[in-house]
């Protein structure tokens, strides 16, 4: 179907490009100067952006479809303006076999939603002991390797993985946390959580592990990607490594950019996440690092669980916050609107930044470019209403927050996968 999006302001990672009448046909941007189309959308006052790529989402398939399915997860992503989602491999069983990766990709391709990309386990069973079949996994479609959710206590295995992945042209993504320092911690270790009686997970569990892993990278070469950085000292280490020319990239999550450990005063496991919500100084450092490009990408770490699981007690409730559907409006409102964070930089962190991590080129709104697009409304203010989420996780730490910048239309390869225009 052809589509004409009239009068929207065009933004991409390089900035604003004025208004245009964007004609979409045959899955591509056909023209910026209008033309005949089967459907015409009046988009004056709205922003048209390249669709987002999420490097880090847990779609729980196979094995934990009670938490999320490919259908609900990829539709939730589309509703959030994402055109591509990298699915984490910590499923049941973990995605550590080539046929499992190709199988889940085949299944995902049938969903009308965001396009699925697969991350595969770096080690068998994500146990951190023996490398998985990295070459075969790459051939099956894995865009990166990670034992996300687990930590690499055996540095030798991670080093071998970095070397092998480098030869395959894939990054290794790590959940950088020292398991010993983290212990049974369920919350950022600070004066507040000590008063609250919550077992602490110190900032140094992350920064010490980032420091170690950067030393490994220096030794092995290759491309190391840090998932969900949460601390000031960790981003400082990454900045330093980047200055030295290391091939290192990093992501931050919407929750670490907008929430702090103060939210734990309610003792509500809704805010229980790994790595934990940190202090205001950390949040500021993450925002600054995102602005400066020390952090390459916003990644959701969308981690849905059932309502009942999140209503267990704070020690037993699982870690995780879902955010696919609100990541962009949340950051548009909290960073761009409230703090003057450059919109082009936010767009970059959700498009070209994460694309580069998995070796994909930048996206520009020019004729011939794939029509992976999102139209957002920068003005309509609407509260977060988790009951309307496509995701199975119908709760949110941001429930009730009044946000701007909601996606109203998402196109994947020119096909409408989300439409709130009515």
């Amino acid at each position: 179907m052809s589509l004409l999006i009239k009068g929207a302001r065009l933004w991409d990672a390089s900035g604003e490009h004025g208004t245009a009448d964007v004609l979409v046909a045959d899955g591509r941007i056909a023209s910026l100067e209008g033309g005949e189309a089967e459907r015409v959308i009046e988009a004056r006052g709205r922003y048209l952006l390249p669709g987002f790529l999420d490097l880090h989402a847990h779609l729980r398939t196979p094995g934990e479809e009670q938490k999320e399915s490919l259908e609900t997860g990829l539709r939730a992503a589309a509703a959030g303006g994402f055109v591509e989602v990298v699915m984490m491999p910590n499923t049941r069983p973990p995605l550590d076999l080539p046929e499992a990766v190709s199988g889940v990709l085949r299944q995902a391709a049938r969903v009308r939603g965001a396009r699925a990309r697969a991350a595969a386990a770096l080690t068998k069973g994500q146990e951190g002991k023996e490398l998985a079949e990295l070459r075969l996994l790459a051939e099956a479609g894995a865009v990166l390797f990670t034992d996300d959710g687990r930590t690499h206590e055996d540095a030798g295995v991670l080093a071998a993985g970095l070397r092998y992945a480098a030869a395959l042209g894939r990054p290794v993504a790590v959940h950088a946390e020292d398991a010993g320092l983290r212990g049974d911690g369920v919350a950022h270790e600070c004066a507040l959580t000590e008063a609250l009686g919550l077992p602490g997970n110190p900032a140094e569990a992350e920064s010490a592990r980032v420091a170690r892993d950067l030393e490994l990278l220096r030794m092995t070469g290759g491309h190391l990607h840090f998932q969900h950085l949460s601390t000031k000292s960790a981003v400082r280490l990454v900045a330093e490594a980047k200055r030295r020319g290391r091939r290192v990239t990093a992501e931050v999550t919407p929750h670490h950019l907008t929430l702090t450990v103060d939210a734990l005063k309610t003792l509500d496991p809704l805010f229980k996440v790994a790595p934990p919500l940190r202090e205001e100084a950390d949040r500021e450092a993450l925002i600054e690092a995102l602005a400066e490009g020390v952090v390459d990408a916003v990644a959701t770490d969308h981690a849905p669980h059932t309502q009942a699981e999140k209503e267990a007690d704070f020690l037993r409730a699982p870690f995780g916050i879902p955010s696919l559907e609100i990541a962009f409006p949340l950051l548009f409102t909290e960073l761009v609107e409230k703090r003057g964070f450059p919109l082009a930089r936010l767009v970059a962190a959700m498009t070209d930044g994460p694309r580069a991590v998995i070796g994909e080129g930048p996206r520009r709104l020019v004729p011939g470019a794939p029509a992976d697009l999102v139209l957002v409304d920068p003005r309509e203010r609407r509260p977060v209403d988790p009951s309307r989420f496509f995701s199975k996780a119908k709760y949110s730490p941001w429930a009730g927050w009044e946000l701007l910048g909601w996606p109203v239309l998402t196109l994947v390869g020119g096909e409408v996968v989300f439409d709130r225009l009515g």
Partner: protein
Amino acid sequence: MRHLLDFSGWERAEVEALFQTARAMKEVLARPIKQVPALKGRTVATVFFEPSTRTRISFELAAKRLGADVVSFSAQSSSLKKGESLKDTVLTLAAYGVDAFVVRADAAGVPHQVSRWVEAAVINAGDGWRAHPTQALLDAFTLTEALGELEGKKIAIVGDILHSRVARSNAELLGILGARVWLAGPPPLLPRRGGFFGARVSADLEEALSDADAVMVLRIQKERIPGGLLASEADYRAGYQITEERLSLAKPEAPVLHPGPMNRDVELEGPLADGPRSLVLAQVENGQAVRMAVLYHLLLGRAA
């Protein structure tokens, strides 16, 4: 007050009003017939997701002495994990028309969660490392009986501070009452980020005991301290056991408190536990009166 979860937002006047009621309850307990019908027709549920015989008995007796009906539920949180959830359990009990929930759990915040799910009053009977407010109330009540006003008094709390809800609740409450609280213990068992509720934290037992008006000793149980943070009871005794000699650093006559159950000759030298400075049995007696006062305030305060 609507619930008793912890002492955030509490003021001294509320504590004093509660103590006044507790004194009246003590009079009731001194009578041959130790019961008044104040809460007749009300139902109190003790819901324990962590075993505790003493606290449960104290609460159940307190409720019965006020004429309330008592139902009790107990299960390990771990056994709840598979089937029925915490919330299901609580909502089921609530459907019976329970007026007050007395909740004990091994995780911080469970009573707070319960208070969001039910209309009834919720009393925290100990949640993980977080709080044990009725223990702190009975401790402060007992201290007030022994010392008078607590304003400016130095109270040393000694033991495994990091994992102790008793230390947290006492620091919180005694702070509200104007006392100077010192928390002392072996460094691995102390708060790591500066401590809580304005209390001083010290690994130096002598400094903490010096001139103290009272000493509160916490239970040390090697098996229950996670992470290999305590090598042995002998190692603990060598540095932190409260002995006659160490107690001489405190003010003469300074009383010794212990929340029980005691590990005799570990955290506290045996003879001290039974000696004239020990307030251990007074604490138990006062515990019942204080819990009666809490139930009375919560259940009748609401009706009014």
